[in-house]
């Protein structure tokens, strides 16, 4: 089976003022990549107007586009409408589920979702105490459980997990330690390590670091646009 070429970027935060300014960097993507993954925070405020810009920037590309939403995309309480607008232009939006793409006969499986926070092993929030804390931790736990099931059921030659929040601390280096619990959760990494994957990509941590690894040895890449400084990261699997 030939290598698969993965392009990935997150946190493009598009709005009307940026219309056309990202797409210009996608003109040759068909020569560089087999698929483009979008790791959430596609908009600034999560409005439908901004989602229209996102749809126009990423429509009709020569490679399939798979996306998850981020916290900014939820801010105006329209995540379902945003996902529907992106779906209309052929972008596959994952909500704690899997998609399998056929790339020249190779099956590329992508399990994805927003993810959530809570912190990292030994220094994290627990499912204990007030209902507000339980709701916070419970949200992440449910997401991790859904990823575990999706990965268990995934039948593919290569497996990628696409998230907005970070599953590991490695890719947060550069961010203040105090905000780590709002940047991701080890529960996400634990779920992926249990079922196996070839790569995890995420965004969200603008001041973080591109390269990291899970406790189980799965490579993690923070593809937030401010971290990359280039239109997308390219990874061969």
């Amino acid at each position, binding site marked *: 089976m030939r*290598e698969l*070429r993965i*392009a990935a970027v997150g946190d493009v*935060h598009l709005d009307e*003022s*940026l219309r056309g*300014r*990202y797409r210009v*960097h996608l003109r*040759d993507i068909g020569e*560089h990549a087999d698929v483009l993954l979008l790791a959430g925070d596609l908009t*600034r*405020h999560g409005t439908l107007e901004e989602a229209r810009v996102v749809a126009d920037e990423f429509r009709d590309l020569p490679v399939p586009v798979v996306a998850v939403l981020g916290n*900014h995309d939820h*801010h105006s309480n329209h995540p379902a409408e945003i996902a529907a607008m992106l779906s209309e232009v052929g972008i596959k939006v994952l909500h704690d589920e899997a998609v399998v793409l056929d790339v020249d006969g190779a099956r590329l499986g992508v399990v994805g979702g927003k993810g959530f926070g809570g912190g990292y092993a030994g220094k994290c929030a627990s499912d204990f105490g007030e209902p507000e804390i339980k709701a916070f931790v419970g949200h992440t736990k449910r997401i991790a459980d859904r990823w575990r099931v999706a990965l268990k059921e995934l039948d593919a030659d290569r497996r990628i997990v696409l998230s907005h929040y970070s599953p590991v601390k490695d890719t947060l280096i550069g961010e203040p330690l105090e905000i780590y619990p709002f940047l991701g959760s080890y529960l996400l990494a634990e779920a992926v390590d249990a079922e196996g994957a*070839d*790569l995890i990509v995420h965004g969200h941590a*603008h*001041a973080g670091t591109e390269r990291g690894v899970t406790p189980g040895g799965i*490579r993690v890449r923070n593809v937030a*646009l*401010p971290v990359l*400084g*280039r*239109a*997308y*990261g*390219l*990874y*061969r*699997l």
Partner: protein
Amino acid sequence: MEAPQYVAARVQSALAEDERTHELGIRVDVRGGQLFLRGRVTGEERRLLIADVAREAAPGLTVRNEIVVMEVRDPEPGQEETL
């Protein structure tokens, strides 16, 4: 006099919550009667808007806008990684 830590926290909250910015990635420090803003954004207009919102949240402080405008580059040969 209000402690500088509280002023910085108020500016940070304003940048995150003000609908003109919704910006979470800017570092805010108050030192020596000055307000320092640091981070990276995608355009000059946004860089100036962030400083406006910060100024409104901390009147009386001199704003030092050290935010950098990030130019998105095309991916270059050799930046591809084989895993």
